[in-house]
């Protein structure tokens, strides 16, 4: 299987399309990604970039009328796109867990928390009632829910947002999956709660060697927990690499502009205008030739119309879809990002 054989998940050439009244819309184009065991990989992008669809494609949860029209998804050496309904159910039950942005709509409001966790264990892992109940309490304790014996009797509405997300993590990791898909897991949470949930994800990775695909629009969150990150724009992955390499030495103009847009605590008391990306992200219905970022790019050239969006290596593990490399030439490729020095 080549050098990628150690990966728990490999995505290649993924394409997701929708039929809309305005014709065929391509939401994800030629996306590729791999995750090794115990690795936390971030997928960052703005709304409409295709990050959530890429994440959901891993367990074939692309919402109707969307469909995966091309590509390969390999989980642990198994071909996900070729799976039968039964195999797919097993994959979702045992091997891949998923948590969503809004834990409240993922929990059943009329059943007690403990019963919901126990039910998952009975159905997915074939545990008996007593065993399921005991194990459910252990799981709840493990994700940091205080006094689980009592809290297991509560209903979802009696839990705070952070506690609900802990329950979701307990459910998603109940069957000891090898991969956890986390789609904006902290976006709806307050910053102090967010810090706790991120710490929990990192602890699970340490203790159980779970690989995590973390989808987020927040570079702060990604930089805090991820080992590697892929940046999506207009359905394409435009740059990916180790987090430090990307953060210090972004080669794609979109990645740089995105980093420059992130609000910084250090700006306090030194208020200046931020350098911003003009315009808005492309609509999925627009068909663009060449580089998707060209209309908003300050380094755009005539040759950008011919760009294929194929990823080319910058340094080991670090790839970019921008062949112009406006930063490599000017700064020798090693310059530190200097957002705070202005």
């Amino acid at each position, binding site marked *: 299987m080549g050098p990628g054989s150690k990966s728990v998940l490999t995505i290649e050439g993924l394409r997701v399309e929708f039929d809309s009244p305005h014709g065929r819309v391509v939401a994800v184009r030629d996306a590729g990604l791999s995750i090794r065991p115990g690795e936390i990989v971030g997928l960052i992008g703005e709304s409409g970039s295709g990050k959530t669809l890429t994440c959901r494609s891993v367990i074939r949860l692309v919402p109707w009328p969307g469909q995966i029209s091309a590509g390969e998804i390999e989980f642990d050496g198994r071909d996900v796109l070729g799976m039968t309904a039964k195999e797919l159910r097993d994959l979702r039950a045992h091997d891949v867990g998923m948590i969503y942005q809004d834990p409240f709509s993922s929990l059943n409001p009329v059943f007690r928390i403990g019963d919901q966790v126990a039910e998952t264990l009975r159905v997915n892992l074939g545990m008996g009632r007593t065993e399921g109940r005991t194990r459910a309490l252990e799981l709840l304790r493990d994700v940091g829910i205080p006094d689980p014996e009592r809290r297991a009797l509560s209903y979802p509405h009696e839990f705070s947002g952070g506690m609900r997300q802990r329950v979701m993590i307990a459910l998603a990791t109940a069957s000891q999956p090898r991969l956890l898909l986390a789609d904006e897991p902290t976006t709806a949470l307050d*910053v102090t709660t967010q810090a706790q949930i991120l710490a929990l994800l990192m602890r699970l990775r340490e203790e159980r060697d779970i690989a995590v695909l973390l989808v987020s629009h927040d570079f*702060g969150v990604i930089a*805090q927990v991820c080992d590697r990150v892929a940046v999506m724009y207009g359905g394409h992955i435009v740059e990916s690499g180790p987090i430090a390499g990307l953060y210090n030495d972004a080669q794609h103009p979109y990645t740089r502009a995105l980093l420059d847009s992130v609000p910084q605590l250090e700006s306090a008391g030194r208020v200046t205008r931020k350098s911003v990306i003009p315009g*808005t992200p492309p609509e999925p219905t627009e068909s663009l030739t060449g580089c998707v970022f060209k209309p908003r790019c300050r380094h755009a050239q005539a040759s950008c119309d011919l760009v294929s969006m194929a990823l080319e290596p910058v340094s080991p593990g670090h790839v970019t879809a921008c062949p112009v490399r406006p930063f490599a030439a000017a700064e020798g490729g090693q310059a530190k*990002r200097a957002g705070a020095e202005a």
Partner: protein
Amino acid sequence: MNQTAPLLSVQGLCKDFGVRRTLAERIAREQASPVRAVDDVSFTLQRGEILGLVGESGSGKTTLARCIIRLVEPDAGTINLDGVDVRAASGNQLRELRRRMQMVFQDPYSSLNPRMTVSAALHEAGRVHNRPGSENGEQFVREALERVHLSAGIAKRHARELSGGQRQRVAVARALAVGPEVLVADEAVSALDVSIQAQLLNLFLDLRDELGVAILFVAHQLAVIAEVADRVAIMNRGRLVEIGQAAAVFANPQDAYTKSLLAAHPQPRLSGVAAR
């Protein structure tokens, strides 16, 4: 520190919300204790100043913002705009006060009328308050759009035909169309993508510089506040726990809650990353 009288002055503001009694309380005929959403809050806002108000969900920051323009009636305290008692105002006086203090909400989709064009929404705001120039609709709308850096071409569109960033600009344009002195921006950039958020933050800074409008900027994200605010107020459980110059509060927080908020802010844990 500042000799001029403040434009807006809030003293000892309180707001309670009644809660439904639990079954046990109803059986025992007990009164449910109300929730104090805003608890003895005092602050001032100078002309042309941006005051950031930060707090987590449920801290009372939105209730406070709404009390100031009397979308919610406060229970106690005083609100004074440029010498006028806001709490005592009624009728035409209240209408004039609301012209001088405008609000921008988090979700422009629900704060703009879906059946109105951008032009109609902006023109209506001007007409209702008899703004000078509003008799010439086309020019009034064009100027309102220019103020928020939008082209006059979108005037004929409806809210649903605009992107999130454009919609929020229209909401800001409508607030500014009546010539306010205070803008209350309640989570006005929270729902936007970072690249669009940065554009809007620059816009708020431009408006302050060009029009001299004072802004109470409510947000849950500390870093967003850091990008725009001159001074910052931290709210927790209805109380202002700390207020001061933005640089001082962020660099040297005094209150334990402020410290915990700053500590929870996501920071890269990378080695070899320059302080940004």
